[in-house]
């Protein structure tokens, strides 16, 4: 592509002609640039990290007992794994109203929407439309930040706990959660919540930092001078991956 004007001396004989076979180098078997390919491989390795987290979650969850009664009769106990919609049922500004998974659903929508604005930024980059790239990057940064703040609220609520709390083995009522005790169920439930959503949140935070840097570089005209907006595409790949991880966390941690 666009490399028709390379300064190569005309070959005197076929022996001098550059070798162009599959294994002679100089070609792109995947038709993807170095940077994009490396981003894909990084994301694959990151998928293994999150895969390890979710596998750990699945194994530990299946090791514990399941609550076998009616869903409406469910109560927290360290005996069995909690039903997620009884744990995550609060919504900011609605006090003690029971909104099972309502806030998580909103967070999911926000992240999916930020993914769409990211694709729109990449699309604008293909058209070399600096203004549109800036606009959609800003929207993506905004939604990413809102997601992070939502997660902070979610953590705060999880740590402070529900009003009723849970009677612990030593006779005291315990509210909320920390790494060694929680009111919702087995100790590892809260640990896995902190580690999995925390690790995902760290990824979102890195993503927002990259996007802010990308916005500054776009504004400075760095990509315009370079002649392409491939950096937006590469950061876009990372951002979609973070959204993808959330899709799996949403299903395995909150729904099933």
């Amino acid at each position, binding site marked *: 592509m*666009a*490399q028709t004007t390379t300064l190569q001396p005309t070959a005197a004989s076929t022996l001098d002609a550059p070798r162009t076979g599959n294994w002679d180098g100089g070609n792109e*078997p*995947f*038709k*993807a*640039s170095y940077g*994009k*390919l490396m981003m*894909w491989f990084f994301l*694959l390795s990151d*998928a*293994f990290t999150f*895969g390890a987290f*979710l*596998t*750990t979650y*699945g*194994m*530990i969850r*299946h*090791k*514990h*007992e399941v609550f076998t009664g009616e869903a409406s009769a469910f109560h927290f106990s360290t005996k069995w794994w909690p039903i997620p*919609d009884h744990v995550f049922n609060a919504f900011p500004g609605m006090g003690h109203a029971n909104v*099972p*998974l309502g806030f998580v*659903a909103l967070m*999911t*929508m926000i992240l999916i*929407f930020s*993914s*769409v604005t*990211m*694709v*729109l930024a990449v*699309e*604008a980059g293909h*058209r*070399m*439309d600096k203004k*549109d790239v800036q606009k959609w990057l800003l929207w993506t940064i905004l939604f990413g930040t809102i997601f992070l703040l939502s997660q902070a609220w979610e953590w705060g609520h999880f740590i402070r706990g529900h009003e009723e709390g849970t009677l612990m083995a030593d006779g005291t009522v315990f509210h909320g959660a920390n790494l060694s005790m929680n009111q919702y169920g087995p100790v590892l439930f809260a640990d896995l919540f902190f580690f999995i959503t925390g690790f995902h949140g760290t990824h979102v935070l890195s993503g927002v930092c990259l996007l802010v840097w990308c916005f500054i570089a776009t504004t400075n*005209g760095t990509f*315009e*001078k*370079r*002649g*392409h907006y491939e950096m937006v595409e590469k950061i*876009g*790949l990372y951002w*979609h*991956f973070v*959204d*993808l991880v959330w*899709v*799996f966390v*949403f*299903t395995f941690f909150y*729904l*099933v």
Partner: protein
Amino acid sequence: MSAPAATDNAFTGEIAKPNTAGIWKIFFVLVAITAVEFAVTFAMEAQSVRTLRNSILIGLTILKAFFIVGEFMHLKHETKGLIWTILVPSVLLVWLLVALVTEGSFIGETLSNMFS
């Protein structure tokens, strides 16, 4: 797709009109799948249909992943080699997940029957 070759001069050409109908279509598909997931979670709370419900949820999640990776991350339109390079190791992850979840059930059973 390879990157456009770098040019020395700043871009000065016409800016094309945005073509985003396809992107918004994928967005609405993702929102619809999420809504269905949500409905299924609350419509099938009984213990007897748990396995069926979880299978549906996991199926829908994989469908969502297909749209995000295929369309948003553009993998569907890359070369076959790149598609397989990403997919094959990911399938091994699913194997690991299934194997260790089964293992977890056995460990739980063994621990709870240890003294009986």
